[in-house]
């Protein structure tokens, strides 16, 4: 029997209509906008000013603080200004505006297509390169990778887990990347193993990606210590704690990090970016984005530079359908609904999902009938309807006891609720409030 995580889970319709579509390039527009906050943590400090000329790969934003990372120019041209610009958060935040001239790369970047297998760098040097290249978690969380790959003092990584699950419906960017860049991903895996000094890595792939499982099974033989594990399709298997449980049978405790059970998880897209950074000196300036949706004319997977407006990507997919009601950055379960499509692609843009108006509106909520379906699907073993009530009545101490901060915001509860109750909306609110209370208590 195929492995999977042991508590809760749902089976949303997969709808992976862009699967198998080759990753295609997209033309670079005349101007790009590069937000200085594309990751979790402190926004970058800009290191360029109006009138500066930049090449592809030139550092334009410098990491400040421990949880932060660098940002590089994805194009060559001239800096127009540093100003506020709308991004996926819905707020206007600092960004670098660049007028595009040609496509000239920094000389240090190796743009040759050859696979470079060997890496003679020591662990610390690898981490420095990852930090310098501005690599973040590409699954959507955008947590700076060099921080994640630096286990806190007193902890030791035992196993590396590569997340090839892509459990969000509709999205296929990771799947297509696995099909086209399998060798690079495997070399990237060996590099991360070296950085962590672990001997064992497991690549977890859900069973709906048979071609990727076959390909990796065949190629992984050439690499010592890497195994491939097909997983039963179940959402949210791409959640870090769920994936560790599925692959190792170890459960990360409440409030603890994966390293507490000796595991470090990296997304396949991140590992590919790490390969390019370490072996090819290429900073993170582009990524694969799935553009898809029920009414989208040509669902596709696009290799897009950071900073290109989503409108351009939607144009490649055949334009915004007239029926459009909602545009989501990311997948349908955890993605963010956008107020405008006139925003740039960032390091965390895994997909653009276009939802018709008819399916975009929520139904009116009814009274809870206590069917307990939310309780049985919650992958963290929480009681969502109780947490919603506790938030509504602001009973924060009880909400804390009921582990509200364990919520991974996967949305399985709201998805399942037959009374259309916005369970996750409330829990998210309560989680923020309780986290604030816990922080203020520590200070």
């Amino acid at each position, binding site marked *: 029997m195929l492995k999977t995580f042991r508590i809760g889970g749902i089976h949303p319709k997969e709808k992976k209509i862009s699967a198998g579509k080759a990753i295609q390039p997209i033309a670079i527009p005349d101007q790009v906008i590069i937000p200085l906050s594309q990751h979790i943590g402190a926004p970058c400090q800009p290191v360029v000013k109006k009138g500066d000329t930049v090449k592809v790969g030139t550092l334009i934003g410098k990491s400040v603080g421990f949880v932060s990372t660098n940002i590089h120019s994805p194009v060559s041209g001239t800096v127009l200004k540093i100003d506020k610009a709308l991004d996926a958060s819905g707020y206007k935040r600092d960004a670098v505006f660049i007028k595009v001239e040609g496509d000239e790369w920094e000389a240090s970047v190796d743009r040759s297509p050859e696979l470079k297998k060997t890496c003679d760098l020591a662990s610390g040097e690898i981490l420095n390169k990852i930090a310098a290249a501005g690599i973040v978690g590409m699954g959507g969380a955008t947590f700076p990778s060099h921080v994640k790959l630096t286990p806190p003092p007193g902890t030791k990584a035992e196993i590396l887990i590569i997340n090839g699950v892509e459990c969000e419906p509709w999205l296929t960017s990771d799947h297509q990347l696995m099909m086209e860049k399998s060798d690079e991903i495997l070399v990237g895996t060996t590099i991360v193993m070296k950085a962590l000094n672990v001997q064992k890595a497991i690549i977890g792939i859900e069973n709906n990606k048979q071609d990727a499982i076959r390909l990796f099974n065949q190629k992984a033989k050439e690499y010592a210590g890497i195994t491939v594990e097909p997983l039963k399709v179940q959402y949210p298997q791409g959640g870090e704690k769920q994936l560790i449980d599925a692959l190792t049978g170890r459960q990360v405790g409440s409030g603890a990090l994966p390293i507490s059970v000796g595991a470090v998880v990296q997304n396949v897209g991140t590992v590919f970016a790490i390969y390019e950074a370490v072996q090819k000196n290429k900073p993170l300036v582009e990524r694969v984005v799935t553009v898809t949706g029920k009414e989208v004319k040509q669902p596709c997977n696009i290799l897009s530079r950071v900073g290109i407006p989503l409108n351009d990507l939607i144009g490649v997919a055949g334009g915004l359908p007239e029926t459009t009601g909602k545009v989501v950055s990311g997948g349908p379960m955890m993605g963010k*609904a956008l*107020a405008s499509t006139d925003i740039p692609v960032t390091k965390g843009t895994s997909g653009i999902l276009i939802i018709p108006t008819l399916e975009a509106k929520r139904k009116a909520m009814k009274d809870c009938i206590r069917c307990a379906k939310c309780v049985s699907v919650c992958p963290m073993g929480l009681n969502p309807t109780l947490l919603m009530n506790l938030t509504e009545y602001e009973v924060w101490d009880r909400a804390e006891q009921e582990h509200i901060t364990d919520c991974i915001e996967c949305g399985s509860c709201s998805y399942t609720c037959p009374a259309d109750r916005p369970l996750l909306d409330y829990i998210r609110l309560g989680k923020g409030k309780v986290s604030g209370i816990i922080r203020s208590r520590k200070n």
Partner: protein
Amino acid sequence: MEQKLIVSPSPHVHSGDTIEKNMYNVLIALIPAFLVALYVFRLDALIITASAVLFCVGFEYLIVKYILKKTPTVADGSAIITGVLLAFNVPSDLPLWILALGSLFAIGVVKLSFGGLGNNIFNPAIAGRIFLLISFPAQMTTWPAAATAATTDAISSATVLGNLKLAPEALPSLQAMFLGTEAGSLGEISALALLIGLVYLLWKKTITWHIPLSIMATVALFTGVLYAFDPIALYHPLIHLFSGGLMLGAIFMATDYVTSPMTRKGMLIYGVGIGFVTVAIRLWGAYPEGVSFAILLMNALTPLINNYSSPKRFGEVVKHA
């Protein structure tokens, strides 16, 4: 941009599950038991069931619209279920005005005065049945002989549980109890038909196995232990399982979403509680049947059980592989 986009927090998709779908699944699961009732009690079964549904739906509509002045919610199907279950819990020759009173009590007092579907503490059909049992004990405890029974000369006959204490020699065969040709309330007579309903509900994932199976297992174990020491009919586990309202209660009434616990652990505590109280009332209480009292009692304890039975948390037991 000319068109406005809808912005809302995730998730952006929904399973499509609705309250109505769950309620209608329960109604579908009740069909086999209804067919047996039709076969055994003929036209009476249809009259009682249709009337109870009409009364329950009608009272809910009128009360919600004219007294509570809200949009009527009868389309959710829960009032239909209350009607069917109430009908299944009464003798097939119950006067219709008594049935109407029971429906009014179930819908008006037990359900709507607490705030309607989702807010009631007690299962409306169970409370309605008990209300009738206490108010009209004579009419509620004389059952017409089944039209299919061998002794067609009898005008009324005692149920299996009634005979257990008084006249164990008059018991029908276990096979009759399982298939449903013995005397009893409308919908409770065929254990087989009710079990088919259970399989359907489990298949459709409308309910989980925890409540019905823990009730049945507790009843079987409790009476089984007594039977092992003293093998008389009064303690026969299969008689207890297949007679009276046990199957109907365990499968359709105890599993009512609103009035049963929400966690697996809670469901098991609740089910075991119902099993124990049922057997205790049947063996040592004044009434021959105890399922409805047991469910009502455990309904009252449900908020407490919910409060003390957390779901199994992720990471609570850190297992090292």
